[in-house]
């Protein structure tokens, strides 16, 4: 029992360190010296790219070839984006979208396709 707990704690510590290592890496590399020129020029372009990639990443588990073919996801993303371009109210866009998506999947609205 005791050894199990110790082993689990050790495993957690190792995962925690590995996770922190990936996060601290750039700060260690470029703490004292300037990042190379090509990095600093793209530095400002990384957030918009990564954010859009995170949106696409959220679709990673969608089964495109089986009903409902990712329609609830794409439809809701379209609504959120449209609403946000129109009103530009973050809370409104996010909660309308989430409520809509929950309704779509819980009531299986797209089951006809």
């Amino acid at each position: 029992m005791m050894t199990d707990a110790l082993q689990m704690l050790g495993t957690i510590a190792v995962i925690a360190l590995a996770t922190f290592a990936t996060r601290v890496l750039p700060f260690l590399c470029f703490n004292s010296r300037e990042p190379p020129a090509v990095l600093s020029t793209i530095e400002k372009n990384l957030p918009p790219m990564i954010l859009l990639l995170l949106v696409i990443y959220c679709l990673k588990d969608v089964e495109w070839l089986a009903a409902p073919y990712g329609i609830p996801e794409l439809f809701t993303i379209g609504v959120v984006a449209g609403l946000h371009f129109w009103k530009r109210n973050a809370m409104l866009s996010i909660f309308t979208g989430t409520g809509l998506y929950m309704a779509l999947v819980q009531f299986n609205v797209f089951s006809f396709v």
Partner: protein
Amino acid sequence: MKKRVKRHEKEEGNADIFMSALKTTVPVFLGYIPLGMAFGFLLDGAGYHWIYAFLMSLLIYAGSGQFLAVALLAAGAGLSEFVIATLLLNLRHAFYGLSLLEKFSGVGKIKPYLIFALTDETYALLTTTEVPEGGSKARFYFYVAALDHLYWIIGSVLGAVLGSLLNLNLEGMSFVLTALFVVLTIEQYFNSSVRFPFAAAVGAGVLSLVLFSPDNMLLMSIIMGTLILMGREKMMQGNTHVNKGIKAHAAVKPVEDITWRKNDD
């Protein structure tokens, strides 16, 4: 006497910053609670005491990393497998730090915590929302990061403790994080005149969705997208000085508007 007045003002300022951090993180709260619960529930199902859900969320604090850990625990993996899998899965965070070097400079002694707490969602919020006017950057960043962390811990402990007792129909609720990313992407679009990163993301993202497994696609797409950005930068540098002037103007403008605040009235 003077000193006391000043301190009082400062505390009020802090309360304001805390409130705006609270508002900023509401979507993450609604996303982390069900996701954290799913993690806690899984760990409970694998036969682990809820204290481990608490410890993992407190010390590791990586959504997909913790789900992976449960899978590896269930499979009885060795330590080296944990290390390699975690490094590969979370390597994308190294790219996050690259664009935060400047923002995180001068935040003082909380910097190690901010780096530790750099999840996808916290990164998205910190790069897109503006520090409240007159507020301390360090405090605002700290509140946002710590609140997100707290939500994640609460969610995972709830999931582990309540487990199957609770039968709420939360299906689809974690879509709140997708919606958050969509909104923050559009904010980036408004706040910057550069358009190429979006094209690079669509190209790299869709290609990775097709080519790679769900577990690998984010890291691969970030690497691919970064290479595309670097390649383009190299090509632009080959052009004349005129282009350089244009590029300087095309750089990201400071965020001028906080949409979160619009809800105040």
